[in-house]
């Protein structure tokens, strides 16, 4: 009933927000005083006024700033993010090329954070003050506080270089060819063609970077789960459930956990958006050709269309994740209504 309208309304509200983001970025970019022509035309050709003029014309850089901005906006409305100054390719194609690598890493990092964080959080909450609680707290805090470039290099040094237990940086073994692109997710694509060797290599290559990337989220997930469980376990309904003679496992999993999911979903939504946009450090250490690396390169080259396109993408991811979280509330908590 109210849900589709609610979603539509939220999506409509996102439009002025995205518009504002593009405007702020455009103004900031124009304040940098950089002539984009130095990125577009090669150093030697810059001496040739004919070529420079032709390039200005071709890229629309000879037009006034407001006209450039309106052209960008007009193109965005058609789903065209423009051409990158740096790669001379369409920004959409670039993002499509690099997003799957980041998404694959982000999803695995999130699964890892949930898979360890939630059970460990429950256990720590139920057995508050136990040895497990303290050790888990110390380990997660330590892991989350260490900078990823440091832990990344140390883990590579021991697990890869010294012990050879895990593979080095990259998405696949250097002598392996990537599976034919369908989704761009190597694990998925290798399964589609039934290539188990490639699948295994892709999986093994994900372990270390996903661990590094997911560490921070893991710590948060664990803390939130633990706190929420402690909270819930004192409630009346838990006592009622126990007095009905339900097993402790049933009490925790069917009763307490359901209420823990609400705060958990909130942080997971934002954490996942963060994993997709904030993986720069991990991507750099592990030679991971993702969106973070692409955007850092674009930013340092002041490649406006790429910066703008990437920023919009990240903004959209955040908006969608927030929406997903809000919609999930309705399923988790029957009291939530989407009516206005």
């Amino acid at each position, binding site marked *: 009933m109210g849900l589709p309208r609610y979603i539509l309304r939220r999506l409509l509200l996102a439009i002025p927000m995205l518009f504002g983001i593009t405007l702020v970025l455009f103004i900031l970019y124009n304040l940098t005083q950089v002539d984009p022509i130095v990125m577009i035309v*090669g150093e030697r050709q810059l*001496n040739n006024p004919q070529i420079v003029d032709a390039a200005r014309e071709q890229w629309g850089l000879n037009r006034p700033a407001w006209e450039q901005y309106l052209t960008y906006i007009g193109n965005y409305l058609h789903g065209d993010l423009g051409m990158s100054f740096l790669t001379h390719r369409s920004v959409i194609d670039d993002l499509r090329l690099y997003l799957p690598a980041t998404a694959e890493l982000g999803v695995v990092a999130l699964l*890892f954070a949930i898979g360890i964080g939630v059970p*460990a959080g429950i256990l720590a909450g139920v057995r508050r003050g136990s040895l497990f609680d303290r050790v888990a707290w110390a380990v997660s805090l330590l892991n989350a506080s260490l900078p990823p470039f440091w832990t990344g290099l140390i883990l590579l040094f021991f697990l890869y270089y010294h012990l050879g237990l895990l593979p*080095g*940086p*990259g998405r696949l073994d*250097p*002598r392996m060819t990537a599976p034919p692109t369908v989704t761009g997710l190597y694990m998925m694509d290798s399964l589609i063609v039934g290539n188990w060797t490639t699948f295994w290599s892709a999986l093994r290559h994900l372990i270390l970077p996903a661990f590094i990337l997911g560490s921070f989220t893991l710590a948060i997930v664990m803390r939130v789960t633990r706190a929420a469980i402690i909270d819930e376990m004192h409630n009346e309904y838990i006592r009622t459930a126990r007095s009905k003679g339900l097993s402790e496992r049933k009490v925790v999993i069917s009763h307490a956990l359901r209420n823990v999911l609400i705060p958990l979903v909130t942080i997971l939504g934002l954490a996942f958006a963060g994993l997709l946009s904030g993986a720069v450090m991990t991507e*750099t250490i592990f030679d991971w050709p993702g969106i973070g690396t692409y955007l850092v390169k674009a930013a340092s080259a002041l490649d406006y269309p790429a910066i703008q396109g990437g920023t919009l993408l990240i903004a959209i991811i955040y908006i969608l994740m927030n929406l997903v979280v809000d919609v999930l509330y309705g399923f988790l908590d029957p009291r939530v209504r989407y009516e206005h």
Partner: protein
Amino acid sequence: MRKPLLGKHLLLVLVLFLLIALLSISIASAQADNSVIVAADVQDIITLDPARAYEVTNLTVFHAVYETLINVPADDLTALDPGLATSWDVSDDGLTYTFHLRDGATFSSGNPMTAEDVRFSWMRLKNIKGNPSFYADAIDSITVVDDLTLEVTLSAPTPAFLSIVTVPAMSVTDSAVVKEHGGTDAADADTIDAAQDYLDQNSAGTGPFILTSWTPNTEATMVRNDSYWAGPAKISGVTLAQVNDSTTALQQLQRGDFDIVDNLEKDLTDQVTADSNLKLEQGKSLNISYLAMSPNVTLGGPLASQAARQAVAYAIDYQGIADGLLLGYTDRPAAMLPIGIQGSDPSIRYERDLDMSRQLLTEAGMPDGFDVTLSLGQGGVCGIPSETISAKLQNDLAEVGINATIDIMQSSNFLTAYRSQELPMLLSTWSPDYLDATMWSDYFSSIDVGPAHRMMMDVPEVATLAQQAGAETDQSTRTALYQQYQQAQKDAAVFVPLCQNRILVAASSQIQNLVFHPVYFFDFYAMDKTSS
């Protein structure tokens, strides 16, 4: 009574996850092939279309999959070796070049290489009007005399033309294949040529290897061309793999995941030499990093005085930079002409002399020194971080009373400001497009062009000598003119070279015939890989 049950199940889940996380039985990927994996800067590649690419790493790929009419041997950069052309004649007026092509050279498609392919490739390069198109600027028209004879008419005598022909952008592509995928050499090729997507993923050349794929920011893969006209290469293929960090790249080399690491950081050389399974190669590069000082009164301020510029040049501790900061892995070039290039004489250069520097400052009327701003980009100079090299120069200059303020700028900001003639004193690097001496003398001499323009350098002696030497066709006269040119450059002290870096390559000792080439970096055709 309630705890154990709960704990057991959750623990099980935990253990399961940890198991998955630690499961790590290596699947032995025993490969029968002897392909070579090179850790390189793949991120640098923007396109692999020879008529459009103007970066650095693409040169390595092009040299493996394409060929040019003339080659430059790694050991003598002033020599020209036959490539797809077996011989060539130049008319007396220096306008007409006739190339006699190799009989029996074939493309990887099986098509024979003919004069029409050369004409097509060069005209396509010219008409695409892309970043490398200036290589074809000198060409006025090309006539196909017969299948194996090509006549090129230039619009003006260009003694550097044979050097230009050696450049990978002038590679010969298979005209039939390129046309089939949307390529054209028509005058409006810049708008209608559509072969880039194909050439980004496939090669259409005569070279010893064939490009099979390029994944941007990740890797470029080539396999051996078994029907190469001079006989197949010894290694079965080459993969260039992206690396960001030299330290991990070296670990991957030591574990056997890589065979070669390009552009190793200098402070890792000890680890390579200490490992008996590895070897270290030093390659000469032709990149010169230089200090520039504007002789223009408005722009340069105190630097407008020639004596003041010379005082700066005498104050710099060149040997300290070379030995202390670069651990000796550098050469010290002559005044803006790199070692290895015709006429280059390394004895024509500045050495540190603080007394001389102080005396020159007195002559310039500034015995207590002066204030100046030294600008540079973020990316580093001479392979030294920008912060380190600028601090070193700041210290050196302070010893004679010159007070330099350091301004490290974002690279595009730096380039924009440099181009708009806003920087009185700066550090930058020049890399050549081809190996003729004009590649330096044309750009560092005349107020109209290049860095000389950006520094507002109006020094007629230098400009005149650069002009004369560039146009001279008699080789011994040309060499002598370049000697005079370097002396004039040194006296002018507008551009002072700091270093000509060596490129460090670490390789597994299984790799044989590893020859570093200053232009193409690697020659994979001669390379071999023995089994361990």
